[in-house]
């Protein structure tokens, strides 16, 4: 799964870096972004991606913005040794130089709360990642089926 994710260097991910003043977050690349379709707007949506820091400085992802959801946040699902899963906001995400943070089912994920419109399979939405150095990155996230398990299965 992981290898597949790595090997597929998606043409899906767009990285629109901001100004050259933000060297740290400018070195961030997002790959294999995808989201699951929602049923209506009452349930939260989820999105996944790989965030890779190709720079020599650590970067910290501090927030998200999208017109799709009023409250986009990164959450972490964890499953304990009794098999009980729970979910909680993950807070700031630090990405070391040359490191990749993977948002995938059952782990870190973008939680899209208070959806403003249904997430329809085949459409996409833009999500802005906000970094602690003031840099922002806009990612176009394709919406896959509600039963999708990865960016392209």
């Amino acid at each position, binding site marked *: 799964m992981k290898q597949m994710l790595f090997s597929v260097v998606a043409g899906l991910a767009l990285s629109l870096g901001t100004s050259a003043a933000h060297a740290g977050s400018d070195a961030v690349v997002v790959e294999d972004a995808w989201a699951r379709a929602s049923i209506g707007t009452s*349930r939260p949506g989820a999105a996944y991606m790989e965030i890779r820091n190709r720079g020599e400085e650590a970067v910290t992802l501090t927030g998200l913005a999208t017109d799709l959801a009023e409250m986009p946040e990164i959450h972490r699902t964890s499953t304990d040794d009794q*098999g*009980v899963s729970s*979910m909680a906001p993950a807070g700031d995400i630090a990405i070391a130089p040359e490191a990749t943070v993977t948002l995938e*089912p*059952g782990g870190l994920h973008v*939680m899209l709360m208070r959806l403003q419109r249904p997430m329809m399979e085949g459409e996409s939405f833009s999500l802005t990642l906000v970094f602690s150095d003031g840099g922002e990155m806009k990612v176009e996230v394709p919406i896959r089926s509600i*039963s999708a*398990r990865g960016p392209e299965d």
Partner: protein
Amino acid sequence: MRRRKFLGYAGAVTAAGGLTLLAGWWRVDGPGAPTPPGTRPLPLTKMEFKLTDHEGQTVGPETLIGKPTLAFFGFTFCPDVCPTTLSDISGWLDALGEDAERLNVVFITVDPERDTVEIMEDYVAYFHPAIRGWTGSADQIARAAEGFRATYERVPTDNGYTMNHTASVFLFDAAGDFVSTIDYHEPREFAVPKIRRAMKEETTEAT
């Protein structure tokens, strides 16, 4: 050696010793390795609850006797684990092909407040057609979870509430005896043989 010593004591102690050994075997070597001892689900024949499936039919543990069963708990407002589990199970069922028809597959909600029969009907339609959605009163859901030794808990959030819950899939044979669990996100190479084993027990007993 230890066992022999126990035999010298009263019957109750012997039984306790036997149970300890059984629990130890189960935990270390047994098919229930991921399941902590003492938290094994009851046989379906020992459970008692009454729920409603996504087509409005009254169902209970007795509904599941006669075919091997995959059962798991979740809720439809869960954005990450539950659709992933449902997709994983759909994939296992696809891998089983026509044999999937010889299984009961049941998704029991831990959030009956939001997961009405209509919501469950809407939701399960997105996954493999063999998957049934069960809901009911909070009290009956609690009785079901108790039988399966599953846990769940309502957790308030900024945006309402979410549910922590047991994410494993429980496997039972056709007679309703617990066979094993499939852990959350367990790879298909492990999951499908476990299901086949539960189905084989059915065949063995039938012949």
